[in-house]
């Protein structure tokens, strides 16, 4: 298994396979299928300073090879998360990544302060939630707002910060560089693509929020391109994701420049996906005499 062991920032991952935020709860929901300690890492569902009950109405809708979701960051708030879930998560022997969202810089900072007292692997800074203060614009769209939240969070957090980029960013390269310059320890990408579906019978959007986030195999080719562009423009490590369903998809993302990869929607298609990807990567390394999977990062 050492062929799959990777270093990411200063952490060691058993393997590069991490499960994506919002698709794996707080780590315990797939216990009937396999031991989550087999995973390289687990990202928590996105946490915000205050509790959120999420969006009303329909929350998921399928599209060709894709999934639209409009969960609306339902979560118990950071304090309850720490008490009720983080302790549970720490029993799992893998890198725990806590995904943190916020509407204002202040919310991010307060959440970080509370998390400073906890043991965890790293923080995934979700800068793609609607930002009320900035007039409905997410932090993750423009480079300057992304830079601002990154540098402020870096100042208060004792944990390593991986900034999760939105594919809706105006310029994915600029925003990636801006986050690196502002002290981000790593980058993850992509979050979901802003998209929509219309109920033609009701003559209205399927989602109460009008737009929703697209994930799944449909987005893979675009996500892969973005990962590759970012890889060529920054020197901090990258966790790539977007539609990864097979070990071959994972290899594509690694070759494009991801040190680790995340699996989201594919958990819903087959709960065993992460384990199958790990096995596939292992066999691939063995069969191709690849001493360590990291040797492939960015080879194309």
């Amino acid at each position: 298994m050492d062929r799959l062991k990777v270093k990411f920032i200063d952490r060691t991952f058993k393997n590069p396979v991490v499960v994506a935020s919002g698709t794996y709860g707080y780590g315990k929901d797939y216990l009937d299928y396999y031991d989550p300690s087999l995973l390289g890492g687990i990202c928590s569902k996105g946490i915000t300073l205050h509790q959120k009950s999420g969006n009303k109405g329909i929350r998921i809708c399928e599209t060709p090879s894709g999934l639209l979701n409009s969960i609306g960051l339902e979560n118990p708030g950071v304090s309850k998360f720490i008490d009720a879930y983080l302790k549970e998560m720490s029993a799992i022997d893998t890198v725990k990544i806590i995904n943190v969202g916020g509407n204002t810089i202040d919310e991010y900072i307060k959440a970080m302060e509370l998390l400073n007292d906890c043991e965890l692997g790293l923080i995934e800074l979700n800068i793609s939630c609607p930002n009320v203060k900035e007039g409905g614009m997410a932090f993750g769209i423009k480079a300057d707002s992304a830079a601002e939240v990154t540098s402020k969070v870096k100042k208060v957090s004792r944990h390593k910060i991986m900034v999760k980029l939105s594919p809706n960013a105006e310029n994915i390269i600029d925003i990636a560089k801006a986050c690196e310059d502002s002290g981000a320890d790593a980058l993850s990408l992509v979050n979901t693509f802003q998209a929509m579906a219309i109920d033609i019978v009701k003559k209205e959007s399927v989602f109460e929020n009008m737009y929703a986030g697209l994930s799944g195999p449909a987005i893979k080719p675009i996500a892969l391109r973005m990962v590759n562009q970012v890889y060529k423009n920054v020197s901090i490590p990258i966790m790539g994701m977007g539609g990864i369903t097979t070990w071959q998809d994972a290899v594509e993302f690694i070759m494009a420049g991801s040190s680790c990869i995340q699996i989201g929607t594919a958990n819903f298609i087959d709960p065993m996906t992460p384990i199958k990807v790990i096995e596939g990567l292992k066999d691939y390394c063995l069969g191709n005499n690849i001493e360590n999977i990291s040797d492939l990062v960015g080879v194309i």
Partner: protein
Amino acid sequence: MAKVKDNVHVHDNIYLLSVEYNGICKMGQFFMLRCWELDPLLSRPISIFDYEDGELKFLYQVVGKGTEKLSRLVKGDEITLHGPYGNGFPYLEKCEITLAGGGIGIAPLFYAGRELNRINPNRKLNIFLGFREKSPLIDVFKEQFQNVIVDIGGVITDEIIYKKESVIYTCGPEVMMQKICEEGMNSGATVYASVEKRMACGVGACLGCTCKTVNGNKRTCKDGPVFLGDEIIYG
């Protein structure tokens, strides 16, 4: 992967699928089914209609792409089942229980009735079924159970007797269940309603299926699909 034993067209757009299965399942639980690769992307939640001697049965209605693909299965085909998922109906000792279902929502009530009778053979079951039109499923229930009251084209909820000590298990269209839950609350009866929501993961991980309750949001797939009637917030 499970093997298809049979997939018969019952009537209209209703099919009965039998698959080989050995495991434990409880009444009111469901499985996520798929017999395709990526199109559609997600699996489809279908309740246990019956389970006995290594044979698991699903009664389903073709409404879209997923169920249409299910309907094309033939004996010997392979199907992927994930589950059983969900809490299911409670295995109550109580002697008299009412089962009230409408449309395809009657599916989980068949196994519920059989299980309730199995754990207490002296039990009295009152079964209320509502259908749009005459259906061969009526006979399927009548052959298995004694007190089966059927309403065709009308409102089955009007025929149910609500008392303080009544226990009602229900599954069906939202309007029907809402009515039963309300009547239950008014009369003090205990209602267990099986809720339907779109599902992605089925295991409680994605929060795609949450249902509003007086105790906050609950995950229909994991904390449900069966909830206490006076817990659910409709609308």
